[in-house]
């Protein structure tokens, strides 16, 4: 296994004790694209920070290419490429120089660093912007430079922390294809995201995490089959009074997996919507139905089933 995360915990002890990571075990295979999917605050970024030597775990172990990242951080960093959540490009250097000096930091000779930087500019279609400073780049372009920089020293594992946060849809597609392109190079990729589609379309396997724990692990298809062959109905109601019998009646139906009252209405998870929908709407009409959301079977329904909440909440 190229990345081994064992019983990882991270507790921030301050005025408020925060358990950011609560016993995560993960193993990544050589060459796979692995997604960590979870809402904000689930522990994704903390996990990545520890794996990339920028935070120390409270307990547990992370090994990258067999190297313990806590015991030998400097050595481990040679195998790690990072695209952080925020733009950390060197603002005092041009795009070309960002790549060139990155290579120098990793021991490349002048000639070698230069050819690698030019090669990357070409690969990421940045050649025209080689002499531009990072402050002049759009979010999408800056992200591309960051990815190019992260893989410049040919790391074994690339970590992408929320790579599409703040990108417009077009830049996001470009970023996805850049990551897809890395598959050819055999780099193992660990990416965190709270975008379902991103996790679904990019990852070979993914882990759903929340409250610092892995809730489910598998390929997107496996997860959908195991947890998510269900449709989620969210009904927003004006009043809750007398709702209990309706919930009980819904629960009693064979096609309904679960039904429960929520803060502003009712949530029903069911294997199919045939016949259920009109009954539900009719029953809910008495309570002042003002909105109905249907989430078709997807990673999102998997997530809602596992965590009881929406990613966007």
């Amino acid at each position, binding site marked *: 296994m190229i990345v081994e995360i064992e019983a990882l915990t991270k507790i921030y002890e301050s005025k408020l004790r925060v358990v950011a990571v609560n016993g995560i075990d993960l193993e990544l295979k050589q060459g796979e694209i692995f997604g960590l999917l979870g809402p904000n605050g689930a522990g994704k970024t903390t996990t990545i*920070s520890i794996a990339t030597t920028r935070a120390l775990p409270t307990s547990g172990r992370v090994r990258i290419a067999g190297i313990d990242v806590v015991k030998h951080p400097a050595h481990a*960093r*040679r195998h790690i490429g990072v695209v952080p959540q925020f733009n950390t490009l060197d603002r005092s250097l041009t795009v070309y120089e960002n790549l060139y000096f990155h290579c120098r930091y990793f021991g490349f000779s002048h000639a*070698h660093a230069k050819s690698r930087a030019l090669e990357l500019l070409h690969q990421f279609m940045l050649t025209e912007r080689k002499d531009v400073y990072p402050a002049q780049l759009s979010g999408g372009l800056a992200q591309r430079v960051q990815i190019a*920089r992260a893989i410049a020293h040919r790391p074994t594992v690339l970590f992408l922390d929320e790579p599409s946060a703040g990108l417009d849809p077009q830049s996001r597609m470009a970023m996805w294809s850049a990551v897809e392109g890395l598959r050819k190079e055999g780099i193992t990729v660990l990416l965190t995201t709270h975008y379902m589609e991103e996790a679904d379309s990019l990852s070979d396997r993914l882990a759903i995490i929340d409250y610092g724990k892995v809730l489910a692990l598998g390929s997107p298809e496996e997860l959908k089959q195991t947890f998510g062959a269900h449709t989620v109905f969210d009904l927003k109601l004006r009043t809750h009074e007398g709702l209990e019998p309706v919930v009980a009646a819904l629960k009693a139906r064979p096609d309904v997996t679960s039904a429960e009252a929520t803060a502003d209405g009712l949530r029903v998870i069911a294997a199919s919507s045939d016949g259920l929908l009109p009954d539900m709407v009719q029953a809910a009409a008495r309570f002042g139905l003002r909105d109905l959301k249907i989430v078709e079977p997807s990673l999102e329904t998997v997530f809602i089933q596992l965590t009881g909440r929406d990613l966007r909440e």
Partner: protein
Amino acid sequence: MSKTGNRDHGLGNRDAGGHGPAIFFKAFFGLFLRDFRVLTREFLPFLLRVGMQPLLFLFVFTFILPRMASGNPLAAGGKVDFGTILLPGLMAVAIMFSGIAAVALPLSAEFGITREIDDRVMCPLPLWAVALEKVCFSAMQSIVAALLVIPMAYYIPAIPVRAHVDNWFLLALVLVLASLLAGSLGLVIGSTVNPKQIGLVFSIIVVPITFLGCVYYPWAWLSKIRWLQYGVLFNPIVYMSEGLRAAVTPNVEHMPSWAILVALVFFTAALGRWGLRGFLGRVLS
């Protein structure tokens, strides 16, 4: 999977020049090159930054004032002219300011909103070495800044400065130690002070320690104000000024060289340690 196993896939180490300590030196050198590239781009601002203060100081106090009939209270020292007193002091100030400007200001920006430091700390170097590189690079600038003061002190003052170096080794040692000390102080400020308050630090720390750093008078002359003479011993700038005084103008009264060197080493180590702890605290959560 073993380390050897990973090399077999042909990606991991093909380009990562060298193994063991060699890569550390190369990475350190890479950071140094980067800083040098940035400095060359800002060479004129660099010269102005380090040169303006000593230039104006020398111009006002050793060129203008001596030409005014009774307007030179600072020449009251008597035996030695003020320019000669001022030369080592101004060298110390140049070292100090350039050390702080080269470490504290960039670090505070890199720790700030941009978090550029996250890029630098991903180098295949121990974190202390990343901090050490900053200090060493600033020390190099400090030495240049200090040496720039010498020609100014030669050409500007109305009465020529009487500098002569008996002991070149002492001068080199003091220059290097004082510059490392200034860099370490910059590291402390850069890694412990909130970026928003960096301006305030100049007013409440940098300016006072400069003015009370035996820059404009030798330490021995403070004997008339005993409490101050002992009070300033906690100020590292005193040893920078006195050290340069011992090296550049040995005829002016100064502290014993051994005491100066011990104090410079002590303050460099203490500030370096403090700065490093601050640095680690900022980059590693």
